């Protein structure tokens, strides 16, 4: 299918709603193995994004991604601000001037975003971070999977973080005590993929 800016705006709007409604849950996940603010951080960032989107609706996928990335960087702070921010900034660079992205281009955008996160945060799969949800999902998309399948992969990736010891971020200070808790960033990443899938269906 094709992803025009309206579809992608639905993605971002859904993400805003999801982060808002899962705010307490994401904070609680972060409290267990971090500092308890991941939900508040994302909610703050996406609230600002909504404001900006309403004031100045972007005309291309690239300008949407850029706006989302810049806003996350300038309002979220913490680890997730620069990481998710880079994700969207890098994705936007691939989107170019196109008015509508096809499946393959969107997959390349997301892959570029993932690479951006990894360049910045130096995490690999298995480190108990957002990468664990993003990587399998984006890998599936690159291999032409349906969006619903990708979202499913992200959820599995999130669940797979539960038994892990963390090697990046605050949770890495905990050693074995991180075992038994899902990573908050992997959880928010999975919500992001769920929203992308539902925007496709709409």
């Amino acid at each position, binding site marked *: 299918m094709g992803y025009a800016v309206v579809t992608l705006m639905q993605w971002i709007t859904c993400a805003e709603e999801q982060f808002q409604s899962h705010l307490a849950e994401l904070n609680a996940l972060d409290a*267990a*193995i971090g500092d308890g603010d991941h939900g*508040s951080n994302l909610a703050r960032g996406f609230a600002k994004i909504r404001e900006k989107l309403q004031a100045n609706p972007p005309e291309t996928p690239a300008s949407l991604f850029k706006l989302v990335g810049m806003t996350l960087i300038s309002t979220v702070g*913490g680890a997730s*601000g620069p990481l998710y921010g880079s994700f969207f900034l890098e994705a936007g660079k691939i989107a170019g001037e196109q008015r509508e992205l096809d499946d393959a281009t969107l997959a390349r955008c997301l892959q570029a975003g993932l690479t951006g996160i990894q360049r910045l*945060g130096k995490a690999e799969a298995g480190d108990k971070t957002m990468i664990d949800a993003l990587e399998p999902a984006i890998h599936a998309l690159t291999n032409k999977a349906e969006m619903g399948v990708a979202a499913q992969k992200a959820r599995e990736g999130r669940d797979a973080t539960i038994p892990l010891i963390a090697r990046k971020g605050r949770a890495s*200070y905990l050693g074995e005590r991180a075992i038994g808790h899902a990573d908050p960033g992997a959880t928010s990443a999975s919500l992001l993929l769920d929203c992308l899938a539902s925007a496709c269906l709409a």
Partner: protein
Amino acid sequence: MKALINQPDQVVTEALQGMAMAYPNLIRLHENPQYVLRADAPKTGKVALVSGGGSGHEPMHAGFVGRGMLDAACPGAIFTSPTPDQIQEASTAVHGGQGILHIVKNYTGDVLNFQMAAELLQNDGIEVHSVVIDDDVAVKDSLYTAGRRGVGATVLAEKICGAAAEAGANLNAITALCTSINDSARSMGLALSPCTNPETGQASFTLGENEIEYGIGIHGEPGRQRIPWQPADTLTEKLMLPIIEDLPFKKGDEVLLFVNGLGATPLLELNIVYRAAARLASQHGLKVSRRLVGAYMTSLDMAGVSITLLRLDESMRSYWDAPVCTPALRWGC
């Protein structure tokens, strides 16, 4: 949540406004983006020191802005690192033409945001050095962690490097001094209670009547281990020994001993910990020649304490003694 606040999302802003109103001679507040700067900034011809990090650690960092210490502090939301543009604007506002030192605590968020800010500043042609503080011996420093956290050494580095900048040292020299302070300092902390984030109203963890979180950071994150309560002298030993062994500090070393309250612990108790820590230091042949006791780097309303030992050389000692004129640390002026 029962705290002296108005809107949960206005806590940091209103507190900074109050602070700026209370110290009009020392600091100024800039809003949108939020940062605190020296009343007399920018100081032309002086290296500018900029730090920052999540709020909830007061008086750090805004309380350390002023002559002889920081030129600017960038406070993020509670426990959330500031953003790159905030750091960029603050740095630009205090830049005196001699470059900028960013003193950054080793948390992924702080490191990433300061790194992005440094890139933005360098694009603007401003020279920026960064020193990442990572003194917390509670965390294993290995390829398999985000590395050690930055804790108490931050306060000492800001004071000592601030004095060096005031005395006219150049950016390379101050960067080297800051690195050497970080290399010569070790810290460890414990909590007797969780803290409650006024923005979310949530306690950071729950502790039993008799339990202590040992090896805690400063963001309400759980510690490495949960242990039963023990007398202050024993708990102090459990903090001091890993610190002393880690560097290692050696017989004959001259040290600064910093006993830091995490927020809700009465000074009465900090003094009891200081007593035990100073005795242990002597027993290990360390010469405690300077000290700091009080709540300087807190975790909101957490009860607990952290201890930092810094091995002093002559220049660190004399910069420590130099005047400092900030809301939270003040002498010689």
